[in-house]
């Protein structure tokens, strides 16, 4: 078996955060492009590594590994830390194609 403390082996893709993030966002945030506040790298959020074993969901930059987004739900509260994201770009055509529409 793999060492359960091995953070590398526990790395997921942020695609798996689509459900939890939908608690807060009306569009599918995992198809949004995220720009890292640290290094400026831009990639679909779903293609970022996700560490889901921490108390919060932690999404890191695929290039420099800085924390881009942290999200936690529990105790009747949702908490979002976006300090590490300089920009999130949601393409509305893409969102519509996935059965969602932008908020009015």
């Amino acid at each position: 078996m793999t060492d359960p403390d091995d953070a590398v082996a526990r790395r997921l893709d942020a695609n798996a955060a689509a459900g939890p993030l939908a608690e807060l966002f009306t569009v599918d945030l995992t198809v949004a492009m995220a720009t890292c506040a640290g290094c400026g790298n831009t990639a679909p959020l779903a293609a970022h590594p996700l560490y889901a074993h921490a108390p919060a969901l932690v999404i890191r930059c695929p290039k420099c590994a800085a924390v881009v987004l942290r999200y936690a739900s529990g105790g009747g509260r949702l908490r979002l830390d976006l300090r590490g994201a300089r920009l999130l770009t949601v393409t509305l055509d893409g969102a519509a194609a996935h059965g969602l529409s932008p908020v009015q």
Partner: protein
Amino acid sequence: MAGTAIRRRLSWQRADVLAVQREARRAYRLSLRPPDWSGHLPGQHVDVRLTAEDGYTAQRSYSIASAPQQPGIELIVERLEDGEVSPYLTEVLRAGDLLELRGPFGGYFVWPAGDGPVQLIAGGSGVVPFLSMLGHHRATGGLRQVRLLYSARTFDDLIGQAELARQPSTVEVTVTLTRGAPAGWTGLTGRVDARLLAEHTIPPAQEPEVLACGPTGFVEAVANALLELGHDPIRIKTERFGATGGP
């Protein structure tokens, strides 16, 4: 309208469990009928939640195995020895039970639009979203070229054998077994590396959309090998589902 759709997708609902069937050595196929389901894209997943009597909850994401054209949804769950959720889903859950889920989610790792070639690469239960995609491709009579390279531990670990055996002529399925093959096995053996990818996948010159899904180590090794071979990272999508023993 959109607001309603979003609320539905977000609400936990109790799906009827129609059947739980053994799919492979460690994998079970759950046939579910969510009461409120507006369809899914091939490759999407649902979140499943278990709640203990004391209120403790555990939640996991599972890819949908069935094509959107099929009624209800099917999940294929691999039993992890030290798992918190999968032992319940594979050993305790029975037809007639209810299972709490929400979804579908994830618009990134889905069947690519267009007519260009598609290369699917699966490690272990990473084949599950591809079963949905291949089912969709078959149901829609798609003409694009599709290849699946599927790495499993042993023959008994192969998921979706029946489906994979009846693919249209546009689809080519290649299986490699990494931990021993039965007598008479004529397929590949050994791990997926750059050489195996070069010989058994659509070459980068044809600019295929590449989707790779499996345990984290498998997917990262495959992604690196694909870059080595000259695939454009813009056309590579990965879905790492963590350390689950590996293919």
